[in-house]
């Protein structure tokens, strides 16, 4: 690679970090300076990414550059950058959409005391995300993966005075770590069996010998998928994402639309070669003839359906969007599972545009209403905030998949992939989710923007200032038109390795879905129509939500998110209690001496035993040591 290009890469990656460090060191007292630094860094990174993109659009060979970072025994870890259509596209999304959000944040948080801290975290987050995008090996990716988790913790908990925000931040962090275990163990298995953590080497080894992973093929794939489940909030690790809405709205837009949650899908596409081998299980469970891809597809489908159902009964504008994000992520993961990583990435791209747009629009509304988030206290906003309304509507149409808006094409691509792959149940599920999507999004639009004002706050609402509406407009354009950019061909060329993408006019692309796979296209369209009509009937003139009356308990369950949080809380509380009781008992029995025994009922029995043995503090310790030695002896001899 040309040295200038390498310099570009270093700059893209490290400019945001430099901004974060610079803000921490020099600009903690100056909001304006910190915003300039942060926005300048990401703007420059966007410009450089564009330059790279333009340069490599005429160079089909994926270049790679790395230096050896660590090498111990057989374990070699590089610090490297991998550039191919996948990472180039992702670079543009992260810096482009991220840049719009940076600018918007400056308007949104104006006046907040901690703006510099916010921008420092935001830049650090961008740095971590770019690290994932550029990584050329698993360990590097994992490191940045954890950094993304860490910086999201800081961002979600930005308003740490609110206990809910602090809790949400912790929850997001811990749930993500849960998925990361699997990821880490998967990486270790790959390294141990194949002797490398480097993507290209791994791909080469698996291409030479598809059975190189032996019976661990499927297990390794699923463990790697665990990481994506955490970051991309897939069922059953989806619980952190809606709570994470406690962060400031720009953070929601950045983390939950364009970057963090996309990381999981991106990773799946990056290592898609792992999933292409035939299913292979360890002998003991060989009867489980399920391939990793099937599991992925079904988890994606289930996530999409469950969260779409939950979205229908939410009343908080940001939560509706959060569940819709979950649902769309389900689509993307499902796309990967039905052998369509290109389609998944396509949807990721369009989704980044329109979901960021929707979140920012929601933020504009929230700001205008002085932090009112309940849609039933809005109404009639279309006239008060026309610019926000129209851009929000574009986002909605794109999300629902109304042609010619971008969402239609990417969603259709996924449905077509499922259909082609013979997964008719998943295909049907996808169509159903499309219907639900139209239902909950138009519910949101009509309740919040249509009708008449339902609270006093609406009467004083005003259109947001230019710095907030400009990013909205900037995002509305690609949300509407991304279907014609030819992103799908660009990606298809990458995933089918050299099969040259056919050049087509935009007019061609406009009708391509109907020409190539008419059934999925029409099915999707009809579903949207049904959802639209249902929303029209239910919410056009509604003063309150009619669904609870119609559905009763089911609507309640939807509103309560099918009780997953309660279930987890119960399970966690139960395990913790049980463990704590056991450990506490042990601890007290061992550690607490004569004074305590007899006082605490729980340790009374232990206390009696202790009295019988005539032991006290130190002697109990000695007894445990002696017992420990005996147990060791027993273990060793029995073996």
């Amino acid at each position, binding site marked *: 690679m040309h040295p200038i290009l390498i310099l570009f890469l270093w700059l893209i990656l490290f400019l945001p970090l430099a901004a974060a460090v610079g803000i921490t060191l020099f600009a903690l007292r100056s909001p304006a300076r910190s915003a300039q630094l942060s926005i300048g860094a990401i703007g420059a990174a966007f410009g450089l990414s564009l330059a790279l993109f333009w340069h490599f659009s005429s160079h089909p060979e994926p270049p790679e550059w790395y230096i*050896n*970072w*660590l*090498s*111990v*025994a*057989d*374990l070699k870890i590089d610090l490297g950058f991998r550039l191919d259509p996948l990472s180039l596209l992702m670079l543009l999304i992260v810096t482009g959409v991220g840049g719009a959000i940076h600018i918007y944040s400056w308007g949104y948080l104006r006046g907040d005391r901690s703006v510099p801290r916010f921008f420092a975290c935001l830049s650090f987050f961008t740095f971590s995300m770019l690290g994932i995008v550029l990584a050329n090996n698993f*360990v590097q990716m*994992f*490191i*940045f993966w*954890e*950094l993304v988790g*860490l910086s999201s913790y800081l961002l979600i*908990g930005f308003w*740490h*005075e609110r206990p809910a925000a*602090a809790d949400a931040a*912790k929850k997001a*962090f*811990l749930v993500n*770590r*849960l998925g990361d*275990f699997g990821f*880490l*163990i998967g990486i*270790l*298995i790959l*390294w*141990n069996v194949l002797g490398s953590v480097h993507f290209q080497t791994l791909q080469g080894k698996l291409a030479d010998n598809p059975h190189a992973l032996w019976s661990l093929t499927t297990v390794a794939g699923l463990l790697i998928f665990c990481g994506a489940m955490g970051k991309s909030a897939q069922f059953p690790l989806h619980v952190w994402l809606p709570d994470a809405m406690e962060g400031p709205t720009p953070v929601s837009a950045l983390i939950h639309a364009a970057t963090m949650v996309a990381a999981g899908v991106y990773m799946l596409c990056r290592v898609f070669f792992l999933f292409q081998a035939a299913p292979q299980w360890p002998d003991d469970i060989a009867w489980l003839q399920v391939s990793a891809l099937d599991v992925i597809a079904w988890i994606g489908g289930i996530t999409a359906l469950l969260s779409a159902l939950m979205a229908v009964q939410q009343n908080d504008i940001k939560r509706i969007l959060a569940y819709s994000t979950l649902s769309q992520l389900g689509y993307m993961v499902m796309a990967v599972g039905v052998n369509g990583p290109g389609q998944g990435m396509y949807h990721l791209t369009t989704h980044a545009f329109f979901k960021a747009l929707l979140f920012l629009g929601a933020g504009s509304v929230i700001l205008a209403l002085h932090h009112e988030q309940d849609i039933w206290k809005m109404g009639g906003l279309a006239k008060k905030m026309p610019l926000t309304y129209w851009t929000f509507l574009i986002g909605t149409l794109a999300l629902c998949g109304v042609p010619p808006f971008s969402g239609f094409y990417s969603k259709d691509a996924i449905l077509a992939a499922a259909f082609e792959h013979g997964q008719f149940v998943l295909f049907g599920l996808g169509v159903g989710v499309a219907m639900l999507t139209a239902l909950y999004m138009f519910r949101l639009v009509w309740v919040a923007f249509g009708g008449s004002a339902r609270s006093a706050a609406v009467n004083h609402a005003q259109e947001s200032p230019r710095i907030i509406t400009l990013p909205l407009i900037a995002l509305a354009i690609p949300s509407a038109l991304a279907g014609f950019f030819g992103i799908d061909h660009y990606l298809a060329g990458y995933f089918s390795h050299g099969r040259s993408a056919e050049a087509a006019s935009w007019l061609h692309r406009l009708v391509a879905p109907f020409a190539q796979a008419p059934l999925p296209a029409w099915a999707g369209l009809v579903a949207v129509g049904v959802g639209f009509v249902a929303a029209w009937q239910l919410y056009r003139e509604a003063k309150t939500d009619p669904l609870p009356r119609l559905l009763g308990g089911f609507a309640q369950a939807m509103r309560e998110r099918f009780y997953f949080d309660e279930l987890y809380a119960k399970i966690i509380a139960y395990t913790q209690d049980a*463990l*704590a009781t056991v*450990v*506490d008992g042990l*601890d007290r029995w*061992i*550690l607490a001496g004569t004074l305590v025994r007899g006082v605490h009922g729980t340790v009374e029995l232990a206390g009696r035993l202790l009295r019988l043995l005539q032991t006290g*503090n*130190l002697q*109990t*310790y*000695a007894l*445990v*040591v002696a*017992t*420990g*030695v*005996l*147990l*060791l*002896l027993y*273990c*060793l*001899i029995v*073996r």
Partner: protein
Amino acid sequence: MLEQLATISNELLLTLLAFTVFSISLVSLKKTDGKAEVLVTAGGLLALLVLSFAGTMPHRAAFGDAYVTGPVAAIFKRLFLAAGILMALLSWPGKRKTDVAPFHHLGEYLGLLLLSIIGMCFLVSAMELALLYVGLELVTIPLILLVAINRHELRSAEAGMKYVLFSAMSSGLLLYGLSLVYGMAGTLSLAGIAAKLTWTPLTVMALALVMGGVGFKISAVPFHLWTPDTYEGAPVPVTAFLSVASKAAGFALFYKVVAGLFAVLGPSVVVMVSILATLTMTFGNLVALQQTNLKRFLAFSSIAQAGFLMIGLVHGGPLGLTSVVFYLAVYLFSNLAAFGVVTVVSAATGKEDMRDYLGLSESNPKLALVMMLAMFSLAGIPPLAGFLGKFYLFAAAAEKGMYWLVFVGAVNATISLYYYLIVIKWMYLLKAAEGRQRIEPIEVSWASWVVLGVSTVAMIVIGILPQFIHWAEVAASSGF
């Protein structure tokens, strides 16, 4: 003879230093504030650390192969010296509100510290049982006195009592095991014993007894019970030293005795160590969750960390040794950073409860930052060194094919993250008053800043620059 003395010049110079410090404190008759002693100790250790690269630790056998400083032993010795420097600086007598020892007896305190370091240096170089045993006791006995040095306080005396009896009992177990080993092999040389031992029930019994003694040193469950009490009762800098240097010496002992002597029992040792590792990690973590006293909290955290280290011991080859040595270095600096903050806060305010750290990020942002980084490093968050350390430990176990152990380790790493976050929560996230008094801004002496700064920089640099793991690897590939 001269050549033999030159071989142990590091230890000889340390002894000289120790007696110099004792003499200074005798001469000054407690009229001074002890700054001279601290400066001499820290400066002397620093000089020794520099000299160690100029030939005071030659790779040469002495005294009939009873003493050899291999490359790994040299790394250990440098770690001990570094820990000693930081400990001495941490004891700098600044303006203090509380009359916490060791600041009454700085001369004796620092001299004892040096004696203990001498013991550690002999321990890692010992190639023969008698030297090993004497080295071990030379580590422990000064530490007992250090724990109890604040004899005007009940807690310190009680901690000392527990430590002395516990250590005596565990060395009894160790010695009895070693005597059985001697009976089977007929020599005291480690290499000679390893070559002669065969699998018999008696060997197994000896292993169990020896493990009881070694388990005490590294605080492996169920031999860990002294740890929390002693850590809590001892003066904070002593606790810090116990938790890093003494533990590192314990792991050297483990490697020499359990893995070295009983090589013939290889598979059994692996099973035993992995079970102990699981117990140690899990127990340490679960109990740490319930602690609020920071010293006690860090005691359980250090028990859990010992469990992680034992994961690396499972792998008998160079990768295992590399990962253990590397993690010990990482752990040393991370733990010293954490204890450094606790020492500074405790010396200025007498507060050791994490609930007292409420809002520390606002009153003392730098201290809070160091503490947060230390917690993240101990929890294993990249890019801090703790992550890379854990990664190599796990990689070593994975190479052995022990995925279940990696899994247990990963689960425990998450549990540990939870309680490390609790400390951060008190410092950064909680704002409500709750009737607790905030800690005022603390004036931190330059010496403490050096300790905190060096530890923090080390935590970050070791995690990013590749040289360190490379050194560990080169050393490990040529043996202890």
